[in-house]
């Protein structure tokens, strides 16, 4: 047992000695390099699966990395696109605002509450600009509402689509007098027509003379459909509005007769 133990230590020390000898003798020598190359060449064969696996793994990693890069780039371009669109839109809005403000006869819509979208809007002209309650509001010459409240520098317009706004009107072709009323959902109706109304589709509806604030002949729209329906307790005809309340940016206030 002791002999075996001794032999083991001798072998160990001898192996260490040879290793150290190799370490010293081959360090920087060409022999060591060429022998390393030979071993590498031989080991290339059993290492082939590991190398193939590694290459495939690298390809997968590269694919995922490229995909991530692409995704990041798309996100970046999307953000850039949004910013550019926003800048363009801002520039358009600003130019529209300036154009409206430069016109003395028109007022700019400054606020339209979403909760009362079809009922009211605010304009940037008020009592200091000579605006009075009851004046008619026009868009490109078409009636779109009436001044409901006036403050010093701004006013509130009650839109023609508001259910509480009633405007006396006349059918241009038949001279039938009725009233235009909004339904609060973007539509306007001609109500209080006589029982034997003779109107047809496409006939023009204008304001009827009621007071100084509401002169006759202001176009409101055209009859869209002659099938009468009931709005409240009265028969009503649907109208095609002359103004476009979905593109309401500027409003002209019709001056009073005495102005």
């Amino acid at each position, binding site marked *: 047992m002791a002999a*075996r133990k001794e*032999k*083991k*230590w001798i*072998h*160990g020390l001898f*192996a*260490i000695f*040879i*290793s*150290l*000898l*190799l*370490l*010293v003798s*081959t*360090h920087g020598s060409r022999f*060591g*390099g060429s*022998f*390393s190359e030979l*071993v*590498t060449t031989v*080991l290339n064969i*059993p*290492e082939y*699966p*590991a*190398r193939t*696996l*590694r290459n495939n*793994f690298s390809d997968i990693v590269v694919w995922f990395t490229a995909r991530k890069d692409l995704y990041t780039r798309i996100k970046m371009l999307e953000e850039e696109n949004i910013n550019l669109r926003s800048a363009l839109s801002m520039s358009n809005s600003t130019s529209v605002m300036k154009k409206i403000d430069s016109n003395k006869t028109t007022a700019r819509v400054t606020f339209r509450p979403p909760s009362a979208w079809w009922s009211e809007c605010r304009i940037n002209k008020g009592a200091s600009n000579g605006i009075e309650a009851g004046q008619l509001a026009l868009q490109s010459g078409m009636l779109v509402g009436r001044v409901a409240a006036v403050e010093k520098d701004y006013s509130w317009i009650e839109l023609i689509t508001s259910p509480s706004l009633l405007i006396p009107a006349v059918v241009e072709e038949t001279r039938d007098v009725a009233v235009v009323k909004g339904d609060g959902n973007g539509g306007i109706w001609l109500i209080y027509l006589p029982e034997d109304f003779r109107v047809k589709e496409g006939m023009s509806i204008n304001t009827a003379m009621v007071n100084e604030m509401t002169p006759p002949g202001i176009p409101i729209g055209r009859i869209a459909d002659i099938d009468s329906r009931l709005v409240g307790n009265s028969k009503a005809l649907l109208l095609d509005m002359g103004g476009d309340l979905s593109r309401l940016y500027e409003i002209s206030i019709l001056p009073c007769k005495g102005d």
Partner: protein
Amino acid sequence: MLYIIFWFLQDFFQVFLSGLLPTADFFLLYLLFRVFDEEESKVLLIWAAFAGGLVWDLRWTGFIGFTSVLYVLSILSAEWIWSFIPETGKTGFLLAFMIWIISVFGYVVRTFAHLYPGGSGLDAFVFQQLIAIPALVFFGIYYSRRVAIDNA
């Protein structure tokens, strides 16, 4: 045969992880495991360590003889330390712990000598120890079972 298998296992990981992280010294772990086998020929073990270390140096480090010294020294020191432990204290856990400590010593020496193909550092060290865990657990359990069978 198992010496060769463990050497190629180590080489496989080294090729696969080349340039990223160092592999665990599976060959050394197996050599150390064999040290604690009373029936194993220690002379064969020493020369297997020498040969394995030599080929490893020829393939990876370029310092021919360095890993051989390290492996043979690890075997001799493991044998020497193990001889001081009483028979009742020789458990699977202690065996795994000793293999681990000696392999860590090898890692430290090679790190200081800048001879780790695949990088060094804390992350490399942690990774190396993590992939060595299954082998250590297996050796520990195997030894415990053998002790249990011998004592039965």
